[in-house]
């Protein structure tokens, strides 16, 4: 009757006198050596390497519970097919064909069959492991290549755009102060209107139209001029003080202030996008400034005020400043990306009551931020791919995604040693992005 593997080990691989103890680096046998023994690894690990020929890179691990020496044991005249070296302290027990046929109840063949089965199984396992590792390495290499290419490309574009944007941004920033000085000297009334233009409060088109009607009736103005007075937020006293002939001037000066403000915000946003494109290509430097995260969220909400229009944005500034050492623009970029994504998702679903919630809180060793919405959530199949470049869910209907938003976010967060995860559900029922940032130095 054929023995089980356990019986083979018990009967033939227990002998103290046939036990061999190797230290790490000791050679069991060299490729080409004559070998007539089968070895059982009681404990430890060895590597088999094959030199020469096409498969000189061949490499096999032999671990506790494995058998080795199979090839040369079966064909002693050919010599060992591989060189076997102990990686660590290793204990082996060996047996020759004579010893393996020493028991009357089993033939040699019956003893060898469970050993063969074991060898085949263990080699198969190690091949699968090797294949899986190679596959994974290939995948991550491809991902890295993609990212590098995207980085090179966006770095090039960023470089081209940077100077142009710098001119616009600096201009938009510098303009208001000398101009407001000039206007103030020239006409104190128009100066007030100009300041209002720079810091205009938002009114709905209906409110502005109603006010225009009111102005038209109260001051006997034609409809277009009344519309302009309303748009320039002119009070009744202001309209009277300015007189009809200066109302067009007032509208123009209000618009100059308003447009300059819009240009400053737009160029700031363009600069932030370019900056993050550049960061895609290289590790960012200059994270050494204290950044109040609340400010960066406020800034992102200002930049996005047109996109979040009609969306119920829930955000409460934390009572204590949440400060992290870093780069302000990068955080603005993170919030901008995530909030914009949420709004786009809800918009494409025609959500009648879109809501988005941003939270920021301190944890024991860092900062936790969440951005959640009541949109449709992330589809099951997208979870795995959502942070990969070139992946976008915005392919149908009206919206196109560049497919670089979330990879940028992930890269920024990881550059701070933080993490970002996404799930569905939360308080609002839609997608939830959770960001954890450790305090640097912890």
């Amino acid at each position, binding site marked *: 009757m054929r023995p089980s593997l356990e019986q083979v080990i018990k009967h033939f691989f227990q002998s103290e006198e046939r036990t061999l103890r190797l230290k790490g680096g000791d050679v069991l046998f060299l490729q080409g050596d004559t070998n007539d023994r089968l070895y059982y690894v009681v404990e430890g690990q060895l590597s088999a390497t094959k030199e020469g020929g096409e498969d000189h890179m061949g490499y096999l691990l032999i671990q506790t519970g494995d058998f080795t020496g199979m090839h040369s044991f079966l064909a002693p005249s050919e010599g060992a097919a591989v060189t076997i070296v102990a990686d660590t302290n290793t204990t082996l027990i060996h047996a020759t064909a004579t010893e393996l046929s020493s028991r009357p109840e089993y033939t040699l063949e019956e003893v060898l069959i469970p050993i063969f089965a074991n060898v085949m199984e263990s080699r198969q396992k190690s091949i699968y492991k090797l294949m899986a590792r190679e596959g994974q390495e290939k995948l991550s290499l491809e991902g890295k290549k993609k990212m590098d290419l995207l980085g090179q490309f966006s770095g090039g574009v960023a470089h081209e755009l940077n100077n142009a944007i710098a001119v616009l941004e600096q201009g938009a920033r510098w303009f208001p102060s000398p101009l407001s000085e000039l206007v103030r000297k020239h006409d104190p009334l128009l100066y007030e209107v100009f300041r209002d233009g720079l810091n205009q409060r938002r009114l709905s088109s209906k409110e502005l139209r109603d006010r225009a009607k009111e102005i038209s009736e109260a001051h006997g103005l034609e409809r*277009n001029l009344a*519309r302009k007075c309303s748009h320039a937020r002119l009070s009744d006293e202001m309209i009277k003080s300015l007189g009809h002939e200066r109302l067009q001037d007032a509208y123009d000066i209000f618009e100059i202030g308003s447009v300059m403000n819009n240009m400053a915000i737009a160029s700031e946003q363009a600069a932030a996008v370019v900056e993050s494109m550049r960061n895609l290509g290289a590790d960012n430097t200059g994270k050494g400034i204290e950044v109040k995260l609340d400010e960066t969220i406020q800034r992102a909400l200002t930049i996005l005020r047109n996109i979040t229009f009609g969306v119920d944005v829930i955000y409460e500034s934390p009572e204590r400043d949440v400060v992290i050492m870093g780069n302000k623009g990068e955080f603005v970029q993170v919030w901008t990306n995530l909030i914009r994504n949420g709004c786009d998702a809800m918009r494409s679903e025609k959500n009648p009551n879109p809501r988005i919630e941003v939270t920021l809180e301190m944890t024991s060793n860092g900062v936790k931020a969440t951005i959640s919405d009541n949109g449709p959530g992330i589809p099951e199949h997208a979870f795995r791919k959502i942070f990969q470049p070139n992946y976008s869910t915005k392919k149908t209907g*009206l919206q196109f995604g560049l497919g670089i938003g979330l990879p940028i976010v992930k890269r920024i967060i990881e550059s701070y040693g933080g993490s970002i995860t996404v799930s569905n559900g939360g308080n609002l029922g839609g997608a939830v992005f959770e960001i954890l940032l450790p305090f640097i130095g912890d």
Partner: protein
Amino acid sequence: MVRPIILSVDDQDEIREGLLRDLESFESYFDLYDCESAADARLVLDEAEDHGVPVALIISDHVMPEETGVQFLTRLLEENRFLDTKKLLLTGLATHSDTIKAINEAKIDNYVAKPWDHLGLQTIVSTLITHFIFDTDLDYRQFGDLIDMRVVLDRSR
């Protein structure tokens, strides 16, 4: 003399105001209105209808929350209202199928991509309102130099 309406519909404040600034020259014979949504635009249209004020042109964005420009214009058509009114779609992002729908279902008269060239847009607006004037039997001579003379020559034959 009747002052027809030119109506801008866009959910972005800056875009609306920028557009109206570019169309300032039309103020001499038209009343310019702006609305942030299709719903608000309907209020203006209802009032114009009640007072018998003609609406010469609607310049609408496409991508807007709640109701898109194409949906808004299609509904007007289905309600058999403002059939003479010229419709211009001014949009930054629209897919191929949106564009096909805009032409086939909303029957838009022109399509302009954002960001627009202001001189080009003024020419298009001038052409469209001249067609509107002829379609509604208004006297084109009352609209000064806002009229597109090529349309006049074409349609007076």
